C-alpha cells in the first residue's frame, strides 16, 4: 500500500506531460501490443460507450426523425421522464417485485447451496462425490428458455375436470393432482399471480444450487484434514465438526458473496421474468427490467424507458459500491 501511494505521488510530481511522453515512447516500441488491443477497444467504444452517450436520450423528447442529438430537451429541465416514472402509481410495486424476487433468491438459494456443499464435503466415497457434483451442475447448462418451456408444460392447464378422464391439456403436475383427487379441476398456475414467485424461485434453486455450491466445495477441499482429526480426538461429533470447522472455513466466502448479492438486489435481469410472466400476473411478475423492456421495445418509448433504466442503473452502482465497502470492512476482501 505504502509503495503504491509513493508511486502515485511520484507520478503527480513528474506531471501529465512526462507521463504522456513515456506512454508514447512505449507505444512506439510496442506498436504490436497497441494493434492487438485495437479491435477490442473499438468494440468497447461502439457497443458500450456510444450507448452510454446515447443515455442523453433520457433527458430528451425523442423524435426518431431528428435523432438523439437534435431532438428537443424534455420538459422540467430535461427531467420530465424521471418525474413521470416517480409519479407512476405502480412504480413502487415494480421496485418491490424486483427486490422481493432478489431477496427470495438469496433466502433460498444461499443456505441451500451451502448445505449442499457441506453434505458433499461429508461424503466418504470420492466416486459418489464426483457423480453427485457432476449431476448437480447439469441444470446450469440448460437454457432459460428451455427451463421456462418445462415450467410452462409441466404446470399447464386448460381447467380440465377430474371427471373428464382426458388430460390432453394438463401438465404433469395437474395430471397428478387430479388423479390423486386433491383438486377436481386443473389449476393454471402460471396465470395466477399467487404462484409466480414460488415458480420463479423454485426454478432458480433447481438451476443454481449445484453451481452455487462450487465455490464452497473448493474452499472446503483446501482444509487441512488434520484439523478434523484433531477435533475427532477431542471428542467432537461430525455435526460439531461441520459447524466449528467447515462452516468457519467458508464463512469469508459466504460473507463476500452475500454482500455482493445484496448489492445486485435491484439489477435483476428480465430474461426469466419475461418468459414466465402473463398479463394476468403483472401485479407480481412485472419487475423493473421487464417494465423497461415492455415500454422501450414494446411501445417504442425509447426516451422514457432509458430514463427508467438510468435511474435503476444509478441505484445499482450505489448499491454495489456500498456492498463493496461493507465487504472490505468485514472481511478485508473486496471486489475492486
Amino acid at each position, binding site marked *: 500500500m505504502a509503495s503504491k501511494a509513493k508511486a502515485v505521488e511520484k507520478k503527480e510530481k513528474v506531471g501529465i506531460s512526462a507521463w504522456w511522453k513515456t506512454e508514447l515512447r*512505449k507505444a512506439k516500441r*510496442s506498436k*504490436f*501490443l497497441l494493434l492487438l*488491443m485495437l*479491435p*477490442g*477497444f473499438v468494440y*468497447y467504444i*461502439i457497443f*458500450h460507450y*456510444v*450507448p452510454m452517450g446515447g*443515455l442523453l*436520450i433520457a433527458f430528451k423528447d425523442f423524435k426518431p426523425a431528428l435523432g438523439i442529438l437534435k431532438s428537443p430537451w424534455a420538459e422540467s429541465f430535461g427531467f420530465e421522464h424521471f418525474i413521470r416514472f416517480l409519479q407512476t402509481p405502480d412504480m413502487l410495486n415494480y421496485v418491490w417485485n424486483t427486490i422481493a424476487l432478489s431477496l427470495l433468491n438469496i433466502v433460498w438459494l444461499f443456505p441451500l447451496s451451502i448445505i449442499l456443499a457441506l*453434505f458433499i464435503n*461429508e*461424503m466418504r466415497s470420492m466416486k459418489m462425490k464426483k457423480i*453427485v457434483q*457432476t*449431476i*448437480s*451442475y447439469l441444470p446450469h*447448462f440448460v*437454457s432459460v*428458455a*428451455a427451463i*421456462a*418451456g*418445462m415450467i*410452462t*408444460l409441466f404446470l399447464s392447464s386448460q381447467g380440465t375436470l377430474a371427471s373428464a*378422464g*382426458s*388430460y*390432453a391439456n394438463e401438465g*404433469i403436475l395437474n395430471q397428478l393432482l*387430479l388423479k390423486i383427487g386433491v383438486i377436481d379441476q386443473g389449476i393454471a398456475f402460471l396465470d395466477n399471480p399467487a404462484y409466480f414467485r414460488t415458480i420463479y424461485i423454485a426454478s432458480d434453486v433447481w438451476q443454481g*444450487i*449445484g453451481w452455487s455450491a*462450487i*465455490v464452497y466445495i*473448493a474452499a472446503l477441499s483446501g482444509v487441512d*484434514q488434520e484439523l*478434523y*482429526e484433531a477435533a475427532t480426538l477431542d471428542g467432537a461429533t*461430525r455435526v460439531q465438526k461441520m459447524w466449528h470447522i467447515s462452516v468457519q472455513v467458508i464463512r469469508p466466502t459466504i460473507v463476500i458473496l452475500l454482500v455482493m448479492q445484496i448489492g445486485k438486489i435491484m439489477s435483476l435481469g428480465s430474461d426469466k421474468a419475461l*418468459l414466465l410472466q402473463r398479463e394476468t400476473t403483472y401485479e407480481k411478475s412485472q419487475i423493473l427490467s421487464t417494465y*423497461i*423492456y415492455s415500454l*422501450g*421495445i414494446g411501445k417504442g418509448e*425509447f426516451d422514457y*424507458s*432509458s430514463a427508467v*433504466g438510468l435511474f435503476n*442503473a444509478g441505484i445499482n*452502482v450505489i448499491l454495489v459500491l456500498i456492498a463493496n465497502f461493507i465487504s472490505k470492512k468485514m472481511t478485508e476482501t473486496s*471486489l*475492486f
Partner: protein
Amino acid sequence: MVKDTSLSSRLLDVIIFITLLLLMIVTLYPIIYIFSVSVSSSTAYEAGLIRFLPVDFTLSAYKVVFTAGTVPRSFVNSVIYTAVYTVVSLALTTTMAYPLSRSSSRVPFKAFFSVVVVVTMFFNAGIAPNYLVVRNLGLLDSMWALILPSAVSTYNLVVMRSFFQSVPETLEEAAFIDGANEITIFTKIMLPLSKAALATVGLFYGVYMWNSWFSAMLYLADSSKFPLQLIIRQIIMQNQMAAELAAMGDTSMQDALGESVNTETVKYATLFISVIPMVIVYPFIQKHFVKGVMVGGVKG
C-alpha cells in the same frame, strides 16, 4: 482418517445420502420425463399414464418436428451463430486480454485501457440505447446483431487475462534476449501455452450463445433466422405449433404418418431437442467451466 462409527455419525450419513439422492432425482426427473413424453404416444399422454418411462413407444412427434416445423432450420441457425460467435469473441477477447496481462512497463496506456474495460462491469446503458446503436449501424435482422453487441464479455476477458498472467514474464524476457519480437512471442509462445484457457473461454462463449434467446427476440424479425431457443419460446409459450400444424393441414399430417399426433408431445420433443446437445456435451466441458469459475472468482 479415524473412522467415526458412532450412531450419530451413521445417522448423519443416512441423512446426507437421502438428501443427495432426492436432489439427484429432482435434478434429473424433468429431463427424463420430457424425453419419455416425447417418445410416447399421444393417447398415453392424454390419459395421463406417463410418470417416468415412455409408454407406447413412438417417434411420430419427432417425425413432425423434423419434417414440418421450423425446428430443423433454427437448429442449423443456432449452430452457425454459436460457431461464428465463439470464433469472433475468442479473437477479440484474447487480443485484448493479452496486453492487459503484461507489465505496464511494456504496454502503452495500459491504465487507460483497463479503466475502459472495467467500467463496463458496473455500468450498462440498458436496453433502449443499445437497441438504437444496433439499429443505427444497420444490423437489425442480421446475424451480426446477435454476435457483435455481446462479442466481448468483460468477465471472460478477466478470466483470460488471469490465465495469461500466470505465464511468468521471465519466459518472455528469455525470448526477447534470443531476439524474438512481440509478434513471435504472442503467436509462438503465449497462444500455444494457453490452449487450455482458450478452450475454457471458448466454451463459456459457446454455451452462452447456444442458450441465449433475448437478443434474438430483440433484434430479429425474420423468423427464418431465429435460433432454436427463440423457437422453443414460440412453440411452447405462444402455442404456435398448433397454428403451424393447422396451416399445414392437420389431416394430411395424420395421413402421412398414419396416426394422429398430439401437439403436446410435439412440444416435448422440441424441448428435448433443445436440451439434449447440452446434456450430451456438459459432462466433458463442466471441468473447464469449474476451472474458469475459480480463476474468475479470484478477482472480479
